[in-house]
């Protein structure tokens, strides 16, 4: 059985969020379990009611990626079509005074601490972005 893919996404730069969304969604629809832990500036990408043009931190590749499928939509599709869980870093929520309700709906499975995510990830493959 293919090991679960664990992705730790901490950057809100568009190219990193896009790469995480592509990896997570394609793996999830390819009969592979995926767990994504979203922390630091990446959590702000998922703030409720943000348009794609407001979500991401700029990087040199952003101008090309506006043609690609939006990363938040890709995560949502991956969850609908495959076995994917997304966790919101409880620290990243706390420091902003945010709750899960401040994030886009139907994406996150809940808040989670890093310790639990790292413990679960011992049994799989781990990628950081």
């Amino acid at each position, binding site marked *: 059985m293919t090991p679960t893919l664990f992705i730790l996404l901490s950057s809100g730069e568009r190219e990193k969020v896009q790469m995480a969304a*592509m990896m997570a*969604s394609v793996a999830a*629809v*390819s*009969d592979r379990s995926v767990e994504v832990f979203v922390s630091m500036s990446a959590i702000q990408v998922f703030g409720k009611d943000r348009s794609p043009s407001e979500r991401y931190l700029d990087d040199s590749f952003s101008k090309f990626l506006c043609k*690609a*499928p939006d990363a938040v939509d*890709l995560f949502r*599709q991956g969850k609908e*079509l495959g076995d994917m869980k997304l966790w919101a870093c409880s620290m990243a929520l706390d420091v902003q005074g945010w709750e899960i309700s401040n994030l886009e709906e139907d994406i996150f499975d809940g808040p989670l601490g890093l310790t639990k995510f790292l413990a679960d990830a011992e049994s799989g493959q781990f990628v950081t972005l």
Partner: protein
Amino acid sequence: MTERVTIDARGAFCPGPLMELIAALKTRKIGDEVEVWSSDKGSAVDIPEWCKKVKHECLGVNEQPGYWSVLVRKAK
């Protein structure tokens, strides 16, 4: 009676065509065929590879002017 549908995913970038194919397969019955048109270069390799991995049947990849046509039969 099996059916064939065509999805025009030309203009969508990776992994858009694959995701559109998967969403379409989900609504079909076993034996139905889905033909996806993609202008994304990677699809000609990625979609057959995905079929192999998840055990659907890729019936062919045909290059057309400006896009690829990939035909998939739902096998499970």
